[in-house]
């Protein structure tokens, strides 16, 4: 039968950071909002994340970083997507990210950054409003 496209997203933990409480909660919240979620688990390199995202044809990669290496890691993901002509995949992220860095990240192509205290509801709504499953 004619199906509507489903939103497919990936929640990924780049780098050596082991703080996964937030990422796992986000993955569950996405599922409970009706999205299909690929969770990569911890300790992923930017290369592994991008390769997996392409194979899984997700609409969005959600990166979670609390250990301060976000500038290097998030930007590496954005850059690799561009290299592979897959920059239609939206990148967003969350975690412990200072305001100045959020500015930098957004200028460089990270679409949104969520910091501690953001209600899950807002995080889900953002996806609903900003991520349209691929139309072509």
């Amino acid at each position, binding site marked *: 039968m004619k199906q509507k496209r489903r939103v497919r997203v990936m929640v990924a933990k780049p780098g050596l950071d082991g703080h996964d409480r937030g990422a796992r*909660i986000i993955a569950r919240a996405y599922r409970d909002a009706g999205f299909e979620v690929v969770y990569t688990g911890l300790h992923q390199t930017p290369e592994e994340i991008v390769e997996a995202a392409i194979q899984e044809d997700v609409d969005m990669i959600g990166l979670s970083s609390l250990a301060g*290496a976000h500038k*290097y890691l998030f930007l590496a993901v954005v850059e690799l997507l561009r290299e592979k002509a897959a920059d239609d995949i939206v990148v967003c992220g969350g975690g412990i990210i200072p305001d100045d860095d959020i500015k930098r990240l957004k200028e460089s192509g990270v679409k949104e950054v969520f910091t501690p205290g953001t209600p899950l509801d807002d995080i889900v709504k953002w996806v609903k409003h900003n991520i349209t499953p691929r139309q072509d």
Partner: protein
Amino acid sequence: MPLTFNAKIFDDIEKGNKKWQENLDKVFGAKPERLTRFSTVSDREINRIYTPADVRDQDFAADIGFPGDYPFTRGVQPSMYRGRFWTMRMFAGLGSAKDTNKRFHLLVKEGQTGLSTAFDMPTLMGYDSDAPKARGECGKCGVAIDTLNDMEDLFEGLPIDKITTSMTINPPASIIWAMYIAMAEKRGIDRKVLGGTIQNDMLKEFIAQKTFMCPPVPSVRIIEDTVEFGTKEVPRWNTISISGYHIREAGSTALQELAFTLADGIAYTEKAIERGLDVDDFAPRFSFFFNSHLDFFEEIAKLRAARRMWAKIMKGRFKAKDPRSWWLRFHTQTAGCTLTAQQPYNNVVRTALQALAAIMGGTQSLHTNSLDEVLAIPTEEAATIALRTQQIIAEESGVANTIDPLGGSYFVEALTDQMEEEAFDIIQKIDDMGGMLSAIEKNFPQQEIADSAYHYQRQIDEKEKTVVGVNKYAVEEEIPVEVLEIDEELESLQIEKTNRVKTERDNQRVAECLEKVGDACSGKQNIMEPLIDAAKANVTLQEVCDVYRKVYGEYRDPGIY
């Protein structure tokens, strides 16, 4: 003998209670209670009131007793804070070894009585600063230690024969400890006098903190090597800090924290006994590490229950005879996950309350979080306020004047009993699974914690639980405090430093040392002496970890959500 009440008195109390409840029901019939359900932050339901009837089975001598007496509900030492305060031990680590050394000197000057080291992510995960996987992470979350040289810079000018040092490190704990011992010996200090702690608790890594390297079984084998070595060679050292802190921060309830931590302790004890050690030789060197969270009374009850349970476990289950084996000595840290980026000054108040609970619970040492916890590694100013918080509680509030001030509170005693009973049930469940190692393989504690964490987050979202400044009393604001930034240049400087060590050392000797480490890993020989030799030969942390990984394989995240 049960507490001083006789049956008649209980009857009267229960009658009185019933009447009081009925009256109250009427009052609330007109205007209902504030909440439909009153519960702790861990969602434990709490009654309107507690009376002697709630503790009618308690026996003062057997269940509560005096501080320093079995089962130590009221404290492990007889003197507790009448003798001296708890150790004020603030966790610190940032950037390079030299930067952290500066922070250590400052903290000692400000009156801190013990050191506590935070390492950066590459060090915690067993990588040197120049590893490709370490890109962007060097020095961000703590201090980078690649070689003995860094360790020497870290403790430059600090009297390591007099102060105790705690090191929060797990998969590479054996190596870091070996470097510490090597440094001491190079300074002419006997390893026998060294005092301190390595966290070295891998079980809770798989459960909660997620700095892991090799699979559970070999990870525990290395830990048992350190336990054996410590028992014989470094008798003042705490070889494992069995940690509930991380379990709680990963999102568990207070009860899960209590049960899983003690179950970890049981697993380590069993393994050491299997190795042929006498329980009374090593158990006194086990220390514990708990969280002090938001729910004031539940936290105090948890800590009191933990002490009593461990005493029972050691005496009953493991037949330990030395009272020091029965002691649950513990460090406490206030709950980082309760602090907010919004209105950060509120965090000082939260931390003060949590610190107070830890002290009421009889902690041996305490770290208080800084008000900028959610923003970055603490600034000097924020860390100083956190230390002052402890000093105010200790020296101004008067709470340390008497021992176990809440002992005998119907509520606290009832809660203590209840938590003990429920935690023993969970431990039984883990025993039935074949112990904590098997439970971890089955992802049991991981899944339980994930469920609790999600449940709590949903409660915040639904405003069932209040977070002041976040889901209630929120305001628009700019972050009013200064945020510490780690210099991005640090990474290249540290890599340069490590490369210099690598070119200047005797690489023939390095290869020999690594071979001996490998032999010890695959054989039965204790790993520690070969590690100390390796440290002295300037072998890097990662070089040793690569041997571990090669011999034992790598553990990968099972991704339980």
